[in-house]
């Protein structure tokens, strides 16, 4: 039995099925669209913060001498805005809708979920203001001050509680792989976040123990929160859009459990050769190589599902974004494994290479998958189609070209920078000089991304205000049946 069939009812008539879906979409409408709207707001804010930090490394005189705009505050604000604002909220929105659809029950207490999203936004706003005014704690991915993380945890527990209730009330059909990823993310995120806050922010453990706890947190924030949300969406949407079952349920299961087992052990790869217990770095090297297993299973499974349907990439916006993201997920694993090898890490660590790697994972993979999810889900909630195919096309072009340019520039520049840093005969100045031209390119790529986000945000607002109603088919990218109204 193939897994995607789990989302197809055993017997009930077509009309019952359709009315159930309509009921689910109606129940999820407000919280999911609200989560998406907030996510897109934070995407814009995060892009601006990121762009400003990027250009400050190129033109240090830019906005210089203003305390709340200093690089060391803008950069963590950028990271938190995109990680906790854009990534988490878009993932929560898509996850909420997928949970309702896969559990085959309408959202329980949608108003309470909306309240928890409000609370999350409050926590995040407080945290970002805290960072910009000098209250941050300078721990990557965890920068927001303790008072903000309390609010975020309360918001998440409220949300996770109600989503968990849906899993307990779900209809008795075989579970689909996306449900495992979503359930795991709901359970793991509060555990990861509360542990890190407890041991590093609220009541810090002594200094020697902090680095391992911190990098355990940062590694797991990505591997066990961001990745499950992204893969849940990719595994849901690709078969759904193609109208075919997922290639293999067993392969999907292997990928899921191997990811779950390996993630924590990659902690040491962020400190290879540094002050950690001697076993942690080798363990991370082993975990880094083994982590090719979950990645390979996902890649093979999705590729074999796609086989014979690649022409649909030309027409479906959701599919094009999602498949770009899924391919980038595989691409993220390769530098990830390289960074786990001590000899490579010794050169590439401490450089822009790691920044490129983060953007590969957070943007080329996760954000692109989330764009795909929003393009797919929003029409089902607003009751109309996306108003403009050209806007979607341009969003894809800008985002895809921007992130490819950015990652290539940072990877190449980072390697040169790393070679200079490692060369006993090179002065420090050389590493700055080597990285500099690539930082210009990265800054320009940032403008491409921002432009794509502005188009996307504008399109989303139009989608909320005046979606195209009465159109029989979705807004497609190309093809004779695609509507293609000019940008007004």
């Amino acid at each position: 039995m193939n897994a995607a069939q789990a989302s197809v009812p055993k017997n009930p008539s077509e009309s019952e099925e359709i009315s159930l879906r309509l009921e689910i979409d109606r129940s999820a409408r407000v919280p999911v669209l609200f989560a998406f709207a907030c996510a897109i707001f934070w995407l814009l804010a995060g892009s601006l913060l990121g762009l400003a930090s990027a250009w400050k490394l190129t033109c240090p005189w830019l906005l210089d001498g203003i305390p709340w705009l200093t690089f060391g505050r803008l950069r963590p604000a950028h990271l938190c805005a995109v990680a906790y604002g854009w990534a988490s909220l878009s993932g929560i929105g898509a996850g909420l809708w997928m949970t309702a659809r896969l559990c085959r029950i309408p959202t329980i207490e949608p108003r309470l979920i909306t309240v928890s999203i409000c609370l999350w936004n409050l926590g995040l706003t407080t945290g970002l203001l805290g960072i910009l005014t000098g209250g941050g704690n300078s721990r990557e991915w965890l920068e927001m001050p303790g008072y903000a993380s309390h609010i975020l945890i309360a918001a998440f527990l409220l949300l996770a509680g109600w989503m968990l209730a849906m899993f307990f009330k779900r209809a008795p059909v075989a579970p689909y792989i996306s449900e495992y990823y979503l359930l795991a993310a709901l359970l793991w995120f509060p555990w990861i976040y509360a542990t890190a806050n407890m041991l590093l922010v609220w009541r810090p453990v002594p200094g020697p123990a902090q680095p391992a706890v911190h990098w355990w947190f940062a590694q797991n924030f990505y591997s066990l929160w961001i990745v499950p949300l992204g893969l849940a969406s990719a595994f849901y949407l690709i078969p759904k859009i193609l109208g075919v079952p997922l290639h293999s349920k067993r392969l999907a299961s292997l990928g899921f459990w191997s990811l779950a087992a390996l993630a924590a052990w990659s902690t040491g790869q962020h400190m290879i050769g540094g002050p950690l217990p001697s076993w942690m770095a080798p363990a991370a090297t082993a975990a880094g190589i083994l982590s090719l297993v979950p990645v390979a299973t996902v890649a093979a499974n999705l590729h074999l599902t796609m086989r014979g349907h690649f022409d649909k990439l030309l027409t479906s916006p959701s599919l094009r974004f999602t498949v770009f993201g899924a391919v980038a997920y595989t691409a993220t694993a390769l530098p990830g494994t390289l960074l786990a090898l001590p000899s490579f890490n010794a050169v590439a660590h401490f450089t822009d290479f790691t920044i490129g790697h983060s953007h590969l994972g957070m943007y080329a993979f996760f954000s692109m998958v989330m764009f795909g999810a929003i393009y797919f889900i929003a029409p089902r909630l607003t009751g109309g189609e996306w108003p403009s195919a050209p806007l979607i096309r341009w969003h894809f072009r800008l985002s895809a070209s921007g992130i490819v340019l950015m990652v290539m520039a940072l990877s190449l520049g980072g390697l040169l920078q790393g070679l200079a840093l490692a060369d006993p005969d090179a002065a420090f100045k050389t590493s700055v000089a080597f990285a500099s031209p690539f930082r210009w390119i990265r800054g320009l790529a940032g403008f491409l991304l921002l432009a794509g986000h502005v188009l996307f945000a504008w399109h989303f607002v139009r989608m909320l205000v005046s979606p195209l109603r009465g159109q029989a088919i979705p807004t497609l990218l190309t093809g004779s049946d695609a509507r293609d109204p000019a940008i007004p």
Partner: protein
Amino acid sequence: MRGPTVTLFALTTVFFAGWAGIVGYSSLVLGHLRSIPDEETGNFLPPGASGLAIEGQRIFVANGCVYCHSQQVRQSPLTTDLQKELGLRATVPRDYLRFPAAFPGTMRTGPDLTNVGLRKPDANWHHRHLYEPRVVTPWSIMPAFRHLYDLRLIQGQTSQIAVLGLSGPHAPAAGFEVVPTGEALALVAYLLSLQQNYPLPDAPLPAAK
């Protein structure tokens, strides 16, 4: 999923393994490292930091210095950190007992600071550099931290703690002086205290040549 109970149990177990292995081990073993008495001097190793330096670490954190500056000397021969004279020996976990928070860092956009107090022992150098980095190092891309300094009219004679040797567009006009605030004094005390020139049992200093 006949109800998610079994799945939740499996998810908890698999997560717990990594959590106990990394977080539990670190908190229990590394969290109980203590400083040790130095038989020669009777002091403790690693040496404690002054209250002003500890306050300075707070300023270091508030301004996000760690995003560009690491504080760890990695092992040889895997890395060339020792050849590049970032320190006399590799950093070990016990070194992080000196301050309430440990910031090994992940970037060397700027130089490593493990031993900046040994390399740059002059407080006025740090004040000049923090006030306007490009006056000291023309190619530097470090932000200026002028908000940690006060521009004052000179009353009588120049203040003893006034920053000397400033030039460039932000240098004080005639009759004015730049004076570090308490935050700048603490930050510089912190930077000057960053010196890893003491031995530890697990990290002896190399024999003098």
